[in-house]
């Protein structure tokens, strides 16, 4: 660059970096939208872990107008009573005590993202032995928090499994918390048994909450 060119550059006005205008959007508009996006993300991160609990309270401790607000149908979850209902249900895990009715998914680990997952190394309701079903307690986006309320299940609560056109009714006999390494939870058993487990305490994977149920009758 020769001296004359430099002199011309010095005479040119400095660009205004506070109001950069792209051809289609200004930086300020871009920042405004980024701020809104960030605020939405922050609200989601803060509220999502509590939302299932809030809806639970609304369903069980609030008057009807609030129940409508969260889309709750007044009818509680019930086990199918007739063969037609059982056939229509498909393979489902039904726990009236926590208003839960979920399709049981089969396959590899990816099935856990879809909801409740029957562990493939364990038995099935019609095969006797230990049928183990797992689900997430809470995740942001890795799958539905189907077992969020599993800690609300108590001994003697009924659980119904509809499986291959038959209904299997169980009664909870034990709830316990074990270490994540406690493989005996999934061990085969002589007697038919249903085992459900998920993470505990809530929002952590420190331990596993295990629900053991034994069959009452089969229809």
């Amino acid at each position, binding site marked *: 660059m020769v001296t004359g060119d430099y002199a011309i550059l010095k005479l040119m006005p400095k660009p205004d970096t506070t109001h950069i205008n792209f051809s289609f959007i200004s930086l300020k508009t871009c920042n405004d939208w980024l701020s809104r996006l960030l605020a939405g993300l922050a609200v989601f991160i803060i509220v999502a872990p509590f939302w299932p609990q809030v809806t639970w309270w609304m369903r069980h401790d609030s008057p009807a107008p609030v129940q409508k607000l969260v889309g709750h149908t007044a009818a509680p979850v019930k086990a199918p009573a007739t063969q037609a209902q059982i056939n229509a249900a498909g393979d489902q895990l039904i726990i009236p005590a926590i208003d839960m009715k979920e399709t049981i998914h089969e396959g590899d680990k990816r099935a856990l993202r879809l909801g409740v997952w029957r562990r493939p190394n364990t038995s099935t309701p019609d095969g006797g032995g230990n049928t183990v079903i797992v689900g997430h307690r809470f995740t*942001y986006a*890795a799958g539905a928090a189907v077992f969020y309320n599993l800690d609300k299940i108590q001994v003697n609560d009924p659980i119904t499994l509809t499986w291959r056109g038959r209904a299997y009714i169980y009664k909870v006999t034990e709830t316990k918390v074990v270490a*994540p390494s406690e493989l005996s939870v999934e061990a085969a058993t002589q007697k038919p048994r249903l085992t459900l487990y998920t993470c505990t305490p809530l929002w952590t994977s420190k331990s596993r909450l295990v629900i053991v149920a034994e069959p009452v009758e089969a229809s």
Partner: protein
Amino acid sequence: MKEWQRTIILLILLALGIGFLIWSNHQADVNILHTS
């Protein structure tokens, strides 16, 4: 604060938020009993 500085801060916060969600989902992925 200039607009471009604000943009950088917002993008960093957004990246942190999205990073947290990805990390959280990864934690959930390893939650099977025997893969503690």
